[in-house]
């Protein structure tokens, strides 16, 4: 188990290093001068040159890379070109929105999907199963931003139960903050739940066809117990993989939903930073997200070892 974990940790470190080099290189090749972009078309050449010097853009590439990496390792992610605030503050402000939203959406999608998947697998071939399959197909096909706009029109404009968008901040009270995240969380969760339900269903069906399940039933155990004690745990591996991937997506892939609800989230930060050529923010956030994905996958790998004891002995 230990060597398994250690090998996984080594992979994490190497991946992060490679990712940082690639991200830095790509962004330096991309055309567009951040200083000129910030000062606009009427600015004089020397004003642009002065700003470039202020932002440290005239230093050699390799030096800037090592300064950046060194800074990140000590927690200093640099200063945003456009906002002039430390990047770590920007990230923290956005995480305060994106992380709870991602967790809410993940929790919601898990709570809906796993029981639905189990229900469907247990009644395979019946009308109920077909109904669930059709519903999940619809859930996967519907674009989540269209669904989001629909939710806004019904619950925010017509019924006025929740705000149409924006985030008041956690200082405005848990109730106000959560009510601003409810619609985005639902819009994000439903399509993810549809995918997860299908994966759960097919993973369970695979397991239910195994010999040891037949043995358990032959022993006289009721179907419910067989499901809970034997089938579910073994079906978890593909489900865990999908959950890991979904979490990574929910953290930064929600740019469209964040636009519809004008939430100050991580996805929108990266998008705005790219259009404004705020290279430091893009580099730091992308590497942070790579780190998150890699670490989450690492945790999923550890969870595999928990779910499947055969892996522990390797």
């Amino acid at each position: 188990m230990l060597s398994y974990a250690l090998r996984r940790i080594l992979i994490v470190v190497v991946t992060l290093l490679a990712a940082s080099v690639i991200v830095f290189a790509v962004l330096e090749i991309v055309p567009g001068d951040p200083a000129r972009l910030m000062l606009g078309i009427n600015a004089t050449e020397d004003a642009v040159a002065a700003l470039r010097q202020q932002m440290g853009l005239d230093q050699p590439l390799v030096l800037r890379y090592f300064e950046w990496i060194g800074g990140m390792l000590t927690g200093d992610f640099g200063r945003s070109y456009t906002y002039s605030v430390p990047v770590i503050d920007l990230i923290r402000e956005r995480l305060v929105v994106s992380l709870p939203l991602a967790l809410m959406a993940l929790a919601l999608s898990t709570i809906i999907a796993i029981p639905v998947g189990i229900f469907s697998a247990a009644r395979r071939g019946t009308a109920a199963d077909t109904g669930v399959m059709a519903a999940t197909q619809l859930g996967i096909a519907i674009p989540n931003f269209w669904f989001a706009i629909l939710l806004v029109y019904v619950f925010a404009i017509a019924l006025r139960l929740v705000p149409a968008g924006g985030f008041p901040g956690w200082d405005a009270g848990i109730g106000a903050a959560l009510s601003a995240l409810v619609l985005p969380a639902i819009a994000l969760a439903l399509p993810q739940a549809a995918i997860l339900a299908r994966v759960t269903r097919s993973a369970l069906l695979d397991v239910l066809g195994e010999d040891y399940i037949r043995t358990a039933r032959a022993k006289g155990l009721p179907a419910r117990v067989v499901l809970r004690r034997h089938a579910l745990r073994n079906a978890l591996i593909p489900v865990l993989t999908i959950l890991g991937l979904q979490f990574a997506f929910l953290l930064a892939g929600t740019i469209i939903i964040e636009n519809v609800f004008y939430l100050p989230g991580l996805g929108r930060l990266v998008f705005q930073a790219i259009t404004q050529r705020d290279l430091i923010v893009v580099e730091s956030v992308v590497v942070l997200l790579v780190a998150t994905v890699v670490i989450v996958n690492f945790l999923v790998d550890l969870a595999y070892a928990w779910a499947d004891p055969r892996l522990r002995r390797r």
Partner: protein
Amino acid sequence: MISKTSTPLAGAALALALTTSAFAARTDLTLAIQLEPPHLDPTAGAAGAIDDIVYQNIFQGLTRIGPDGAVLPSLAESWSVSDDGLTYTFKLHDGVKFHDGTSLDAGDVVFSLDRARADESTNAQKALFSAIAGAEAVDDLTVKVTLSHPQGSFLYNLGWGDAVIVAPESADTNKEKPIGTGPFKFVDWAQGSSATLEKNADYWGDPVALDKVTYRFISDPAAATAALLAGDIQAFPSFPAPEAVAQFEGDPRFSVVIGSTEGETILSTNNGKEPFDKLEVRQAIAHALDRQAIIDGALFGFGTPIGTHFAPHNPAYVELVETYPYDPEKSKALLAEAGYPDGFKATLKLPPPAYARRGGEIVAAQLRDVGIDLEIIPVEWAQWLDQVFKQKDYDLTIISHTEPNDIGIYARDDYYFDYHSDEFKQVMADLDATTDEDKRYELLRQAQEIIANDAVNGYLFELPKLGIWDAKLEGLWHNLPIQSDDLSAVHWTD
């Protein structure tokens, strides 16, 4: 937004208010702007969104531009100009305080002007200050500014957001914590979400009606519509979705005010590149453009056609749309005269905004009708600035020039149009030397006619200002003579 739990409370409060005395008008406002500013220092960046929040609200200059484009006194109570037009003496208001309590004096004005025109200055409009030879504080409330040559537009230039007066103690931190002299104080900026201002109790001028103002940043058109309809915001002075305006026009809860801006949207033409260096070719392009079709397609019918590089709401504007009226046959004839009977191929580079992308497709179709085959190349802002603006590597492009009164760009030799006209430069030089308003209007008219006759660029339309706000709100600007959301006159009528 009325939640279920606050309705009974609101009802009780209402009953109490009605039984006691007259209903006090609301004093809070939440409005939205499309783009978030990168920071809050108008003297260090070109983004119009900065001025949306701070111009006249937090920061003020010696002069200011009013809602109809006129130059009005602001921190300078009065001024006098020497006969040769080289010395301006400004008398400041007494008792003006910055938001951190320090007093405004002539030294701060000198500091601000020197800082803007310094060698290492990052002011985006450094050219505004280029005529200044020196500034000195005669006494605490009097500033003398000496110009190196007369500049007729000097007082107007001082009204730009880039020329506001800052204090030496706070100048370096204005980007995150703006400290100005205006009627509103900066409270908080939640990056990505909102910015909040509150009333300045020690304001030197006329008191404002609002106590608290929150700006929200909403760029998505659907989100903007939803936010207004749900009541999350009460005003959107520059609404980003022309396709949704009809929804609000019939609704008694909202006022829809369509005004004009200083955004001349033009089909910029590389006058230095073949075949656009020939006047006949440029005239042919002008004859091929059906402006109304472009406005209908790109902006859903909102927008005013223009015939030159000037804003229609300006008193000096000349109607020149008919200089080269829509006439595809004439266009083909001119092309044949110029040596291109079968037309030619060229590229059209389009930046991100919808008016460019949508408008570009319509322009390409109209030019194809006369034989000019355009390849549309969509580019991002950074690429546009680099390729088109800096390197002049383009044939045609569509862009909106939103700087106010910027017809002077046609006198610049290194500008991306690559247009050189001695006659025009002479008119601009005369304009600089005149402060007499009537003479200035006459010269501006001449300038407009020259560039219209030379068909330097294809003049398409003036960007509209789509203002949608609560019907009970008054005092917001109808037009946009300068980028601003000046809230000094805004008040609720209920």
